């Protein structure tokens, strides 16, 4: 694999908002995991092997409540199943990527890297090499910040400089990039309403995948109707 400075710097430039967003969450995770009895080495290992923020938080709370191996693994699977949908959407852009590199890429698909890479694939001169850099720099930021948290992140005051808002702002902007026409905006609104309604009724995060599937299907039907109208 050819790695040149251009690919690294472009990837890094795309990754910084993700890293900025990961740091407070990673540190918070490290603090909580350490309180639950994990040492910094175990925290780093978990972040490296799993690399999925919300499911790691859930796993820690399950661990401290004495849940079984099977229960924790199954919960992790369900919580992270939404990435199945994200990878499906990304696959279209990885047609000419060697299999070995896809194997490496899959490891780094998170909510954030997915949204970032997809936005770049659509609008810019972007390829899988740069996308891979985004994934792995984000991963590094996650692993490092969780370990730092494990060492004593409680020393850092909470809410410094509004950094807790970095990820929300980033996702908001990436959503704006996706609102390319009326139908996409309608899909987003439908999804938001279904997700919020479900989130109020059902615990857990299954609302993400259900809302997205329903809203995307609605979008498909709307588009079909529009074409029928024209012809």
């Amino acid at each position, binding site marked *: 694999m050819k790695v040149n400075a251009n690919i690294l710097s472009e990837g890094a430039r795309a990754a910084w908002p993700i890293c900025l967003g990961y740091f407070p969450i990673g540190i918070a995770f490290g603090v909580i995991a350490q309180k639950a009895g994990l040492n910094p080495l*175990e925290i780093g290992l978990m972040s490296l092997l799993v690399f999925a923020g919300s499911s790691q938080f859930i796993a820690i709370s399950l661990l401290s409540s004495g849940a079984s191996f099977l229960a924790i693994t199954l919960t992790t699977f369900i919580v992270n199943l939404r990435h199945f949908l994200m990878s499906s959407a990304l696959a279209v852009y990885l047609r000419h990527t060697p299999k070995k590199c896809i194997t490496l890429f899959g490891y780094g698909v998170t909510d954030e890297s997915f949204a970032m890479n997809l936005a770049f694939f659509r609008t810019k001169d972007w390829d899988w090499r740069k996308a891979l850099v985004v994934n792995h720099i984000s991963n590094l930021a996650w692993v490092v910040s969780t370990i730092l948290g494990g060492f004593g992140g409680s020393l850092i005051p909470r809410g410094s400089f509004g950094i807790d808002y970095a990820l929300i*702002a980033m996702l*908001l902007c990436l*959503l704006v990039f996706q609102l390319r026409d009326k139908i996409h905006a309608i899909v987003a609104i439908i*999804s938001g309403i279904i997700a*919020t309604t479900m989130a109020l009724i059902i615990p857990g995060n299954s609302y993400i995948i259900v*809302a997205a599937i329903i809203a995307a299907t609605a979008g498909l039907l709307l588009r079909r109707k529009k074409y029928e109208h024209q012809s």
Partner: protein
Amino acid sequence: MLFLGMGIVTYFPRLLPLLFLSRKELPLWLEAWLDFIPAAILSALIFPSLITAGNPRHLDLLKPEMIVAIPTFLFAIKTRSLGGTVLIGMALFWLSGKVFG
């Protein structure tokens, strides 16, 4: 051992669609459907975190997260700058903490 198990069940749903769908010609309807997935997922990720709170969750329309989201969203539409939006969002959220907190 537990972490390895968690890692494996996280990895395969991420990997398999990439491996299979990237090597196939997809039917047009599927490609059109997948094209709506990002907007749908992002919206489903963001909205509940902006307007619900607590455990079990309840509706809370006036969270600082939601109030700050409005100018941040408008800024993103106006400038289409990712870095700028992140910094503006952070600054406004920090300010809101000073004002309301």
